[in-house]
C-alpha cells in the first residue's frame, strides 16, 4: 500500500504523510518509509477517532512520522461487524501553507511564522530551518505574541532583525497557536509598503484563517481522498491490481483549495483599499463607541484581566472624583478592606465570564466620602476565549440607597412611634413605671442612654426621675450617678430648656467641651459616660414645661440631626401628656384617699353620734317614762284610796295631772319613733300604696265608728320603698286628715297620684280645717303645731315623721292648704330609691 499512498502524496503536495494504523495505534503502512515502528496510540486525535468512530482533527503539532509541523487527521474504517479495522491518518503540512501565503503576499524580506500556544515554532517561511520544532518562547517577538495575542508591534525577529509584526491567534474560540507576519522595518517604511505595513495584522489574520480553514475543513479534502483510497485498497485487497485512486491533480479538491488559496491571496491584495476602508470604518466605529462610552452620563470603565482600570469615562470622573489618568492602571476605589474582599470574591466569577447585574458595592470617592454603586459588567472576550477584561457600568445608587434607608427608618420609626403613643395611652396612670417606659422606648429609638428630669412643684429643682441605658451593665451606674446630683443650678443646659421651653440639639460634643460646660458635680458623670451627641427636649404639658428628656449618643460619627430632635420632641410631647395625666391621677388619688379618710372619720363620728343618740333614746324611753308612770300611778292611788281627803277640785287637779302624764307618754313614744326612723336600715321592696291606704282608713274607721268620712282612694298605686316606714308616713298623713276633718259635717279624704315633670306625685287631700299658708314652713318641724291641742289633740311630731320618711326615700314632701278649706299633702318617691 505504500505505492498507493505515495501516488496520493504526489498529487496532494500539502500532505506530509499518509498512512494506515491498526486499532492499537501501530502504523503498518505509510507513504514514506519509517525508521522504526511508530505508535500513535497516545495521540489525542487518534484516541478521539477510536472513541467516536468519526473523523477527527488534531491541533497543530510536529508530526511523528514526518517530523514536520502539521495538522493531523484520523479516519476510522469499520468492518461489517461495526468494529474498527483500520484508522487512516494524514498529516497536512503547515509550512506548505505558510510558504504559499508568504509568496503570495510578502515583500522581499517579509516572512510568516506559526507558533503553538507554548511558543514552539510550527511553521515558517522563508527559512523554516532550523527553527521549525524549536521552542522560541524567549524570542522577543514570540514573547510579545504570547502576551498580547493580537496586534501590531515592532520587535526583534528570531534572527535578531528588527521587524514590524502583525500577529493574531489561530482560531477565535480554541487557542491552538498564533500566526505572526513580519517585514523588515526599513522595508516597512518605504512609501510603497506603508500600506502593507499597516495591513500586517490583516495579513496575519488572513493566514490564520487559511490555516484554521484547512484544519476545520480538512475532512473535505482528506475524507474524499481517503474514501477513494479506501475503496482502492479494498479492491487491491480483493486482488484488483489495476485499481487507482482516480485523484488527479487537476480535479483534486486539494488542488482546488490551493487554487482558491491563491485566489484569496490575490483578492486580499486586490481588496487592500477596501480593507483600508473597512479598517477606517472599524476605527471610526471604535471611535464612535469610545466617544459614546466617554460621553455616557453613566460611569463606565473597563478593567483588564488583572482588575486594573483600562478606561475611565467622564461620568466616572465626575461621580468618583478620580481623573482618568489618576485611576488607569490602578484597582477600583472600593471603600473598605471589607468591600475589597467582596470585590475579590466577585473577581473569579467575572473571569469565568459571568456578568454582574446590579451587585452593590461601597466605593470611596477621591474626597473620601462614600458611595454605593450598583455594578453591571460584561466580559471582554479574548481571542482564546478567555476573559481579557470587563466593561463595567457603575450606577451611583447612593441617594437611592439613602432614600430607601430613610424610608425604612421612617417606617421603623413610624411603627415605634405608634407603639409608643399607644403604650403611653395604655401605660396608664402609674407614674413611676410610665417614666421608666418612656426612657426605655426613647433610648431604643434614638440613642445610647436617656434621662428624664422632672421639675419640682416649686419650680426650683430638676430631679432625675427615670433613666435608661442601652447597655444593661451601665444602667445601674447611670442611676446611681444621677441620684447623687442635687440638680438645682439655673445656669445649666437643662434649666435653659425648662426656662425657654425650647429643646437643645448639640450634634457633636467633645469631652473637653463637656468638662468645661458641666458643673464640677457632673465631672464624674462625664468621665463615665461618653457623651458625643446630645439632645434635650422639654416635656411640655398644657403650655407648661414639667421637665426634660435628655438623649445621648456615645459613639463618634453618629451625630443627632434635626430629624432626631423632632422625633425626640414628638416622644417628649406624648410622654409629657402621659406624665401630666399620671401626676393628675396621682393627685386625684391622693385627694381621694384624703376624702376617704375624712369620710371614714366622719363616719366614725357619725357612728359615735348615733350611739350617743341611741343611748339618749334609751334613756328617754326608760327614764322619762318611769316618772310618768309614778305620777300617774300615785295620782290614781290618791284618787282611789284617799278620795275622802281630797275635795272635788283636788280630784279635778289630779285628773289633769294624769291626763298630762299620758300626753307626755305619747310625746315620748312619738319622739322615739322619729329617732328610730333615721336609724333603722331600710328594706326596699314593692309597696301597694292603695291597699296600704285602704287598711289604714279601715283601722281609723273602726277606731272611730261614729265618724262618717267619704274616702276616695285611687286604685293600684304602687311604689318601691320600705313598707314599714311608708306605712308610718301614711298613718300620720291619713291620721291628720281624719283628725282635722272631725269638725266637718261631710268629711272627705282622698288619696291619689298625678304625674308631674315625669315624676309621680302622690297626695293625700282632705276638706278639713286646713291651715294658713303663711305658716307652711313650720308645718314639718317637730313639735310645731298650727292648731291648739284643745281643738285637735296631737304631739306635733306627725308631719316631722312623714318628712323624715319621705326624705329617707330620697323624695320630697310639701303641703298646700287654706284655713277651713282643707289641706293637701304631696310627696314623691324617686325612682333611684325604687330600684
Amino acid at each position, binding site marked *: 500500500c505504500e505505492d498507493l499512498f505515495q501516488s496520493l502524496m504526489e498529487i496532494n503536495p500539502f500532505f506530509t504523510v499518509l498512512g494506515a494504523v491498526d486499532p492499537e495505534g501501530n502504523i503498518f503502512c505509510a507513504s514514506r518509509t519509517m525508521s522504526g515502528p511508530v505508535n500513535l496510540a497516545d495521540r489525542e486525535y487518534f484516541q478521539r477517532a477510536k472513541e467516536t468512530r468519526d473523523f477527527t482533527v488534531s491541533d497543530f503539532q510536529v508530526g511523528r512520522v514526518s517530523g514536520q509541523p502539521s495538522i493531523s487527521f484520523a479516519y476510522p474504517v469499520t468492518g461489517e461487524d461495526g468494529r474498527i479495522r483500520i484508522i487512516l491518518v494524514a498529516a497536512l503540512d503547515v509550512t506548505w501553507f505558510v510558504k504559499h501565503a508568504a509568496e503570495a503576499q510578502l515583500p522581499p524580506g517579509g516572512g510568516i511564522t506559526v507558533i503553538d500556544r507554548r511558543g514552539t515554532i510550527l511553521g515558517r517561511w522563508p527559512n523554516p530551518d532550523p527553527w521549525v520544532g524549536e521552542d522560541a518562547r524567549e524570542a522577543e517577538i514570540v514573547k510579545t505574541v504570547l502576551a498580547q495575542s493580537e496586534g501590531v508591534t515592532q520587535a526583534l525577529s528570531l534572527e535578531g532583525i528588527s521587524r514590524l509584526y502583525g500577529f493574531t491567534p489561530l482560531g477565535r474560540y480554541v487557542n491552538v497557536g498564533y500566526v505572526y507576519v513580519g517585514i523588515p522595518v526599513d522595508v516597512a517604511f518605504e512609501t510603497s509598503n506603508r500600506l502593507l505595513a499597516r495591513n500586517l495584522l490583516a495579513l496575519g489574520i488572513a493566514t490564520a484563517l487559511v490555516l484554521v480553514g484547512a484544519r476545520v475543513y480538512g475532512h473535505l479534502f482528506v475524507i474524499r481522498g481517503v474514501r477513494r483510497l479506501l475503496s482502492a485498497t479494498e479492491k487491491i485487497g480483493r486482488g484488483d491490481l489495476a485499481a487507482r485512486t482516480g485523484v488527479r491533480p487537476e480535479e483534486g479538491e486539494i488542488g482546488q483549495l490551493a487554487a482558491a488559496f491563491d485566489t484569496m491571496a490575490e483578492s486580499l491584495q486586490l481588496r487592500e483599499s477596501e480593507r483600508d476602508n473597512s479598517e477606517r470604518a472599524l476605527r471610526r466605529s471604535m471611535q464612535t463607541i469610545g466617544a459614546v462610552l466617554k460621553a455616557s452620563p453613566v460611569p463606565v470603565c473597563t478593567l483588564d484581566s488583572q482588575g486594573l482600570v483600562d478606561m475611565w469615562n467622564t461620568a466616572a470622573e465626575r461621580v468618583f472624583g478620580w481623573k482618568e489618568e489618576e485611576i488607569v492602571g490602578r484597582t477600583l476605589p472600593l471603600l473598605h478592606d471589607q468591600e475589597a474582599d467582596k470585590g475579590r470574591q466577585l473577581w473569579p466569577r467575572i473571569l469565568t465570564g459571568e456578568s454582574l447585574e446590579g451587585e452593590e458595592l461601597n466605593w470611596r470617592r477621591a474626597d473620601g466620602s462614600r458611595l454605593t454603586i450598583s455594578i453591571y459588567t460584561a466580559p471582554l472576550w479574548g481571542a482564546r476565549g478567555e476573559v481579557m477584561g470587563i466593561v463595567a457600568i457603575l450606577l451611583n445608587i447612593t441617594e437611592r440607597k439613602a432614600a430607601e434607608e430613610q424610608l425604612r427608618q421612617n417606617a421603623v420609626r413610624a411603627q415605634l412611634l405608634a407603639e409608643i403613643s399607644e403604650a403611653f395611652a395604655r401605660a396608664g396612670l402609674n407614674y413611676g413605671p410610665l417614666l421608666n417606659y418612656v426612657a426605655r422606648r426613647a433610648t431604643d429609638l434614638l440613642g445610647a442612654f436617656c434621662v428624664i428630669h422632672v421639675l419640682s412643684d416649686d419650680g426650683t429643682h430638676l430631679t432625675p426621675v427615670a433613666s435608661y441605658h442601652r447597655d444593661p451593665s451601665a444602667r445601674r451606674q447611670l442611676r446611681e450617678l444621677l441620684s447623687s446630683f442635687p440638680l438645682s443650678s439655673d445656669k445649666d443646659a437643662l434649666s435653659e430648656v425648662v426656662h425657654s421651653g425650647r429643646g437643645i440639639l448639640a450634634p457633636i460634643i467633645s469631652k473637653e467641651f463637656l468638662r468645661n460646660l458641666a458643673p464640677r458635680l457632673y465631672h464624674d458623670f462625664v468621665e463615665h459616660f461618653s457623651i458625643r451627641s446630645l439632645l434635650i427636649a422639654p416635656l411640655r404639658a398644657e403650655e407648661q414645661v414639667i421637665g426634660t428628656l435628655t438623649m445621648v449618643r456615645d459613639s463618634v460619627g453618629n451625630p443627632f440631626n434635626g430629624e432626631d430632635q423632632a422625633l425626640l420632641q414628638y416622644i417628649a410631647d406624648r410622654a409629657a401628656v402621659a406624665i401630666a395625666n399620671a401626676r393628675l391621677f396621682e393627685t386625684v388619688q391622693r385627694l381621694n384617699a384624703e376624702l376617704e379618710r375624712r369620710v371614714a372619720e366622719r363616719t366614725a363620728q357619725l357612728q359615735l353620734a348615733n350611739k350617743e343618740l341611741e343611748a339618749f*333614746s*334609751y334613756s328617754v*324611753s*326608760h*327614764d322619762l*317614762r*318611769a*316618772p*310618768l*308612770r*309614778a305620777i*300617774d*300611778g*300615785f*295620782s*290614781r*292611788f290618791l284618787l282611789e284610796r284617799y278620795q275622802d281627803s281630797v275635795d272635788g277640785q283636788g280630784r279635778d287637779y289630779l285628773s289633769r295631772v294624769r291626763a298630762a*302624764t*299620758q300626753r*307626755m*307618754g305619747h310625746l315620748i*313614744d312619738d319622739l*322615739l319613733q322619729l329617732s328610730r326612723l333615721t336609724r333603722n336600715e331600710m328594706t326596699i321592696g314593692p309597696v301597694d300604696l292603695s291597699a296600704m291606704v285602704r287598711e289604714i282608713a279601715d283601722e281609723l274607721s273602726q277606731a272611730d265608728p261614729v265618724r262618717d268620712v267619704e274616702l276616695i282612694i285611687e286604685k293600684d298605686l304602687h311604689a318601691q320603698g320600705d313598707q314599714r316606714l311608708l306605712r308610718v308616713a301614711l298613718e300620720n298623713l291619713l291620721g291628720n286628715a281624719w283628725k282635722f276633718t272631725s269638725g266637718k259635717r261631710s268629711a272627705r279624704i282622698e288619696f291619689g297620684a298625678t304625674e308631674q315633670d315625669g315624676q309621680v306625685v302622690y297626695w293625700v287631700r282632705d276638706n278639713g280645717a286646713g291651715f294658713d299658708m303663711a305658716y307652711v314652713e313650720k308645718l314639718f318641724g317637730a313639735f310645731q303645731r298650727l292648731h291648739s291641742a284643745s281643738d285637735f289633740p296631737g304631739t306635733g311630731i306627725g308631719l316631722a315623721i312623714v318628712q323624715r320618711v319621705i326624705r329617707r326615700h330620697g323624695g320630697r314632701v310639701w303641703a298646700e292648704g287654706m284655713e277651713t278649706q282643707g289641706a293637701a299633702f304631696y310627696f314623691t318617691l324617686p325612682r333611684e330609691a325604687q330600684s
Partner: protein
Amino acid sequence: MSDGIVLLVEDNADDEELTLLALKENNIGNKVVVVHDGAEALDYLFGRGAYDGRDVADRPVLVLLDLKLPKVDGLECLRCLRADPRSRLIPVIVLTSSKEEEDVIQSYALGANSYVRKPVDFGEFVEAVRQLGLYWLVLNEPLPGS
C-alpha cells in the same frame, strides 16, 4: 299560790312601790324579795355578799327583771343567771319601760321567758301585773323543787 318567792329586780323606788301595789291590787300573796341592782340580784341568787349564807336551794319561782339597772344591768344579770345551773331554769320576766327592739331581741336571746313593757297608764300597768301573776304564778306549772 302564796308560796314561792318572787324576786323583783328594780332600782326605781317608784316603780318598786307601784309594782308591789299592783301585785297587792291583784291579790298576789307571794313573798316578794326586792333587790335594787343586778349585782344584788346575783348575790341573792347565789348566796353571796349581803346574802351570804342564804339557802340557795330556796329558789325564787319568778324573777321580775328591769333592764336599766346600776352596777350589773338587766341583760348582764340575765346572762349570768342563765349561765349558772342553780338559776338556769328560773322563769325570768323582763319588766321594763324600754320598747327598744334591740332590748327585746337581746332579752329573748339571753333566755328571758317573757318581755313586758310597763305602760305609763297605771290602770294598764295594774292589768299587766295581774295577767302576769295569773299566768306565771297560778296557771303555769312551776319547776319541780321550787
